[in-house]
Every structure is written in structure tokens, then in C-alpha cells.
């Protein structure tokens, strides 16, 4: 008992696979850079200044809104061991629903914006619930049902943007611009909207539910051992349904925020092409869906994504490097490597006797 719990926690965190994977990614990335003749310090410096400097922070926070939103959407079911692979479809459905609501709502603009946000959220939630019902009622595995249901949703949105809702005279597959005022308020002249606040609130709610409520407890226990949870009377099907609905709702919210921000319309492919869903899934996996970790990992990936572009502009290094970094992190994490313990070989499954080994 020589060490305090805080020190012990810190040393555990240092040895964790997450820390190891992140450092390994950075180091191996540096080796790549040196190998191609670039200066790793300059490249990483460009990533940092490009994403966190005065010119980049706005873009980073805008990206963070979507990445964190999707990361939360995927973390919520992941906390119970469920994987929602239909994030793209739910997000796009949320986006197109928000666009339709924004274009046709008879309410005043500010109320319409709120309504569009809610409608997009509801649409995403309902669609994801459908995937959960496929598993609960028909026995289609959630991985399959969520992924496959994604495609018709994307196609439907694409059709609507190309035909019935298409902006007359435009060469792009996009809807008309939302009426003046149907938008989320932005901070100053930046592209950062109150959407970021909404997503941050969602993250706070997730943290609270996870650590302070009976439902959150049941979700965590289901993720750690589903048979244990079922044995104690947790209704797995009901939980799956509720978690998927929440997950889809968050994804729909991200889609709606995307449509209610610049360029204030639904442009086919603009929500899916930046890969928010996959970045979000990676962030959630990286953090094992823990609330705080998901936020940190999302921020990390938002920085990489925006900083990679800046690095490409200011140095000769292509931004694909940041994707290489991301991939290395995932590979290391999948291998579950960790820093070796100082005390020699691990003891396998030896029961811990009283207290810390002195």
C-alpha cells in the first residue's frame, strides 16, 4: 500500500493499450516520415498548428461536432457490447429529414430549425430501432441488420436530393437551400454552431447515465458479461432496442446538425464522404466506449483530420499520413499490446493476495 490510488491509476493508464497504441502510432509515423525524407518535427508541428492554431481551431471544432456525435452514437451500444454498423444510414436519414422539415415547415424559421433538429433525431432513432427489431424479432444479427439497412436509407436520401427536392438549375445533387433563418446559430463568423453544444450536452448526459444511473450500470454489466446481466434479469432485447434507438437518434442528430449548418442544405454524399461514422467508431473502440475516453479520442481524431490537411498545405507530406497514423493505432489496439510491467513476467491468473505486492 505504499502508492496512493492516484499514482497507481496514473501508472495503470500509462501501461494501458490505448497509450501504447497512440505512442506507437506517432513513433511509427515518424519513421515513415524520415524514410520519405521529410522532417517529422515539421510535419507533426504543422498538424498541431494547423488544427489548434488560430486558423485551424474553427475547422477542428466543426469536425469535432460530427466526429464526437458519431463517436457517441457508436459508443452507446458499444458499452453494452453491441455494434451499430448503420451509422451512415441513420445520419443521412436524419439529414434528409431535417432538410425536408426545414424546407416545408410552416413554422417561423427559428422554431423550424428546432423542429428539423428533432425530426432528424427522431428519424435516425426510429431507423436504428428497426435494425434492433430485426435482431430481436427475426434473429438477424444486429451487425448485419444495421449495416444492410444503411444502404436503402442512403439511396433514398440520394434519390430525394437528385429528383423531387433537387435545386432547380444546379448541377449538383443537392436540395434547395433552407429558408433564411432556418439554421443553427453560429459562434461569430466561424462555422462552429450551437450543434457543438448540443453534442457536448449529449456527451455529458452519456457520462451521467453511465456512471450514476441504474440503467447505465445495467448497460456496463451487459457489455462486460451479457450472460451475467441476463441471469440477473436485465432484459436484453429491450435494452438492445433502447440502445439502438438512442444510437440512431444521435446519428440522426449529427445529420441534422450537418444540414442546419453551412451550406444549409442536403448535398448528396457530403455527410458520408468525410467518414465521420468510421472515425467515430474508431474513437469509441479506442476508448472502450468510456464517456471521457470517447471525448478525448474524438478530439484526437478531429485534430488529425484537420491537421492533416494543413500539413499537406504547408509541407510536402500528403495528408494520407494521418490516415496511416489512425490505422496503426487501430492495429496496435486490436493486438491489445501494452507496456511490459516493470516487475518481470506477468503472473497469469494468480489470485491477488491481500493488498498491493509491496
Amino acid at each position, binding site marked *: 500500500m505504499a502508492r496512493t490510488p492516484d499514482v497507481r491509476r496514473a501508472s495503470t493508464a500509462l501501461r494501458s493499450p490505448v497509450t501504447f497504441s497512440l505512442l506507437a502510432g506517432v513513433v511509427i509515423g515518424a519513421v515513415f516520415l524520415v524514410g520519405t525524407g521529410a522532417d517529422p518535427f515539421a510535419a507533426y508541428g504543422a498538424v498541431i498548428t494547423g488544427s489548434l492554431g488560430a486558423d485551424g481551431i474553427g475547422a477542428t471544432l466543426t469536425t469535432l461536432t460530427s466526429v464526437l456525435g458519431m463517436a457517441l452514437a457508436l459508443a452507446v451500444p458499444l458499452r453494452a457490447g453491441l455494434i451499430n454498423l448503420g451509422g451512415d444510414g441513420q445520419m443521412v436519414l436524419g439529414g434528409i429529414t431535417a432538410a425536408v422539415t426545414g424546407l416545408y415547415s410552416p413554422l417561423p424559421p427559428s422554431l423550424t430549425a428546432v423542429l428539423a433538429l428533432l425530426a432528424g433525431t427522431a428519424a435516425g432513432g426510429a431507423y436504428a430501432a428497426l435494425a434492433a427489431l430485426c435482431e430481436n424479432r427475426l434473429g438477424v444479427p444486429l451487425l448485419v441488420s444495421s449495416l444492410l439497412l444503411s444502404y436503402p436509407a442512403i439511396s433514398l436520401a440520394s434519390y430525394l436530393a437528385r429528383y423531387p427536392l433537387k435545386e432547380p438549375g444546379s448541377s449538383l445533387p443537392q436540395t434547395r437551400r433552407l429558408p433564411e433563418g432556418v439554421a443553427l446559430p453560429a459562434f461569430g463568423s466561424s462555422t462552429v454552431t450551437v450543434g457543438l453544444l448540443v453534442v457536448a450536452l449529449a456527451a455529458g448526459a452519456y457520462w451521467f447515465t453511465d*456512471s*450514476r*444511473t*441504474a*440503467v*447505465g*450500470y*445495467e448497460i*456496463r*454489466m451487459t457489455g*462486460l*458479461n451479457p*450472460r*451475467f*446481466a*441476463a*441471469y*440477473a*434479469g*436485465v*432484459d436484453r432485447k429491450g435494452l438492445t432496442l433502447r440502445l439502438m434507438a438512442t444510437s440512431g437518434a444521435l446519428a440522426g442528430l449529427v445529420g441534422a446538425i450537418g444540414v442546419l449548418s453551412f451550406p444549409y442544405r442536403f448535398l448528396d454524399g457530403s455527410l458520408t464522404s468525410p467518414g465521420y461514422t468510421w472515425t467515430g467508431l474508431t474513437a469509441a473502440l479506442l476508448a472502450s466506449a468510456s464517456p471521457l475516453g470517447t471525448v478525448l479520442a474524438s478530439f484526437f481524431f478531429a485534430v488529425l483530420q484537420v491537421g492533416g490537411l494543413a500539413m499537406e498545405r504547408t509541407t510536402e507530406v500528403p495528408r494520407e499520413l494521418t490516415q496511416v497514423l489512425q490505422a496503426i493505432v487501430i492495429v496496435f489496439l486490436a493486438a491489445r499490446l501494452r507496456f511490459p*510491467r516493470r*516487475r*518481470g513476467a*506477468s*503472473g*497469469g*491468473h*494468480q*489470485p*491477488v*493476495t*491481500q*493488498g*498491493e*505486492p509491496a
Partner: protein
Amino acid sequence: MTPQPSDRPAGAVQAPAVELLGITKRFPGTLANDAVDLTVRHGEIHALMGENGAGKSTLMSVLYGMTRPDAGSVRIDGRDVSFGDPGDAMAAGLGMVHQSFKLFDSLTVAENVVYAAEPRRFGFVDRAAARGRVRELADTHGLTVDPDARVGGLPVGLRQRVEILKLLHRGARTLILDEPTAVLTPAEADALFAVLRSLAAQGRTVILVTHKLREVLEVSDNVTVLRDGRVAARLRTATTTADEIAAAMTGRAVELDRVHAPGARGDVVLDVTGLNAGDAVRDVDLTVRAGEIVGVAGVAGNGQSELVEALAGLRPVTAGRVTLSGRDVTHASAAGRRAAGLAYVPEDRHAVGTAPAASVADNLAMGHHRTALSSRRGLLPPAAVRTHAGRLVERFGIKAATPDLPAATLSGGNLQKLLIGRELAHDAPLLLVEQPTRGVDIGAIQNIHDQIIAYRDAGHAVLLVSAELSEIRGLSDRVLVMYEGRVTAEYPKDELDERTLGLAMAGGTARRPGAGQDGDED
């Protein structure tokens, strides 16, 4: 290529078959083996005993090349050896039957036996030779088994024979058996002992790792008892007693096989009529009254687990009726049954009864998180979870450094105490308990038994499923025997005797419930 058993006479003056000298193995925080010496002569059946965590498994993994010792040496037939992996150990004539068998279910007995050491002909597996080899080995050692049977369809006792045949085929002269009778009926265990004696008589050496006193006394020649990583006693079976071995294992005198006094019966709490759950449970009738422990005996796999799962709401009931304290819960969910007054200690504490990766506190909160610990708004304050954990840790003597550590760090006995404590704390009218002391130390067994008896004496009904006959005898007020999914016999406490019980478990005599004078079935 076909090794023959050595024909050395037992007990001749020669180097010991296995000699472990001063084996020391340290794991972080524990000294698993502390200068352990073990000498096993040729042709001997040597029992290695000790509670969980005494160092038996570590010592055997050192011998079998799975763990490298920090100090000490291993000698086989007087020669120093150093095994890098089990392959080396096998080449030196050792063979180990693990607790969980390592067989291919879809292959035949002969194919399993010769696997990785097949007799070949023109580069192909010579099936006829394989079958002949199995017959020959089986005949020599009384290990009768059909070489062409699919392993997947064989009962556990026969699968164990296949494991032994496999080792004999590869020329093992020393066999290590890890808790071999855990899954066997008394009759199967007797058959195994006969095989072991015959192997020893032919000069092979057997090391029996076990915690069952009775079988050690019955079959072994010598006993080495480990406690806390050290040799606590070296005994000759012929001159020792169960009490002496138990005292050496625990370091204190233990009262073995205590038969508890019967309880005071009250109203019917659990009433089951014509219960069916798929094919596993068929037409089961039973009642459990308040203040009564009803034991369910049977060889593993005769529907006991499925019966309990069906009662707990984890397996659909296909026909019949289940009433709990007068409420029909036949089709209630697991949560609904718990709400109606049921607590449940499942057989598999790692896979079902706990979440080993979750903290001790979180594990103790399960089931209480919606009732005692949670406010009306569904909040679950971490402080309440911790306080609750502290209370149960103290009340049930769970040894946990802090409740924040993962439950996986607890020893088997402590994890079981956690599980039983959590379920007893529900104070539910009915407790279902499966294998409450499997893999638990002798010292902890007594504690757990006392807890169950106290729970009964507080006026609760208990349904106990156990493969340990002594446990069933000691605790139960009434015993049912399950065979092939049915309740085939019922005995009141004063008519219990281990022989008839063992016979009934093997499907021998069927004594129908209700045929006796017990007036409970109406």
C-alpha cells in the same frame, strides 16, 4: 514407433519415475511454490493434494514444461531434464489428462487416439492399424471403448478413457490426472480407479491431482499435501486418515461431512408440476417448503442445470406450471421471478454468476441496483454501491483488497462467497443454489454450508443442486435424483445412503416420487 509399456516391477530399487527438487516459482505477489520436493516412484499412484492456490497446478505445470521454475530441478528416471514445452515432457514419457478434455468430437475414438502420432502406410493414415492399436491398448488396460464410436456421442467417463488411451499410445509412462473424477458418477469413478490400479500394476506411474479425500484414500499409495506453496505433509495412504489429510491441507482440524439437523418446515414456496423444458427436463414435479432444503442429486448432464435455468427464467418452459409463493410465474421473465422472490446462485460463477472484469463492488450491486441501492428516479449513486459492497464484504468475509479491484482478482472461494453473499442478501423466499462449493477450499466449504443452513433456518426455501453426494447428504432435508431429465427417485433425510443414491444416479433403481411415505406431493 509403437512404444511398449515398461515391464519394470513396481517398487524395485531404481531411480524414481519423477523427482522434483526444491521447485520455487514466484508470481507477482505470491510465492506459488516454495522449495517443493516431490518424489514419485515407479508403479506408484501418488496423490497430490491441496486447496486452491496451494500450488498444485503450478507444480504440475513446472513438471509438464508449461512453466519455468525460478529455482529447482526436475528429474525423470534419475536424469536431469529441462522441458521447454509440453512436447518435451511428452517425449520424456509424461502425459497429462486435463480437466477439460482436448478431443475432436466429430472424429472417432481411434482417430482421436492416434492423432498427431498416426500409424502410417505409404504416407497415409493406416486406419486398420489405428483401430488395432486402440483395441490392443484397451484390452491390456481394461479401458473398453469402441474404436469406431464418434467421441461426441460418448459419455464423459468414456471420453476420459479416450484421453488416457491417447497418452498410452504416445508411450506415456507417467500419467498426470488433474481432478479426474470431477465429472464422473461414483460407478465411473470406481471404474477409473480400477484402470489406474491396473496401470500401476504394469509399472506405470500415476500422479493424481485432486482435492477429494475419499478417492485419495481409496486408490493412492502415497500422498503429498501442499499448503501455501510448501509441502505440508508426506503421508502413506495405508497409515493415514481423512482427518489427518484435511488438517494438513487447511492447517487446522476440520469437521468433515457434517450432517446438519433437519429444518422446521413451513408453507410451500416453490410448487412445480409437470415441468418440461425442451428435451432436457421432462415432467418434473417438485415442491420446496419454507425452512427446507431440497437436494437434487444426479450425474452432470441429466437435466439438473436445465431444471434450475427453467426455474430461474433463463430457459423457456415448454409445458407445466411453476408457482412461487402462490404466484404463477411459469412464463415470467428472469426479472419477474426475482421480483416474485427468487435468488439464484448459478453453477458457473465466471461465465454467469459474475462479470469478472467488473469491480467487486459492481458485482455485489447486481440485482440490488434496482431495489435497495437505487432511488426512485433510477439514479445509482456510486457511494451507495461502495457502501453496499463494504457491508457484504464484511458480513460474508470476502477477502478483497479493495472493492474497486476487478472480481477476476479474487480466488475461487472468495468469488463464490461474493456470489452467495450477494444472492443471500436479497433475502428472497426461495434460493436456487447450484454446485455451491465446486472448486472451493475445504475451509470455505464449511463457511458456505453454514450460510446455506442459516438461510434455511431463517425460514427460506432452498433448492440445492450438487454433484457432491456428501454435500447433498449433509445439507438436504429431502433428496431428489434426476436421471435423463426426470426425477426418478426421492428420499427423505433419514433414508439417505450413499450406495442407493449412487445407484439411482446411474439410472439403476427408480423409486418414483410419491411411492414412498413422504406426504408432500399433493
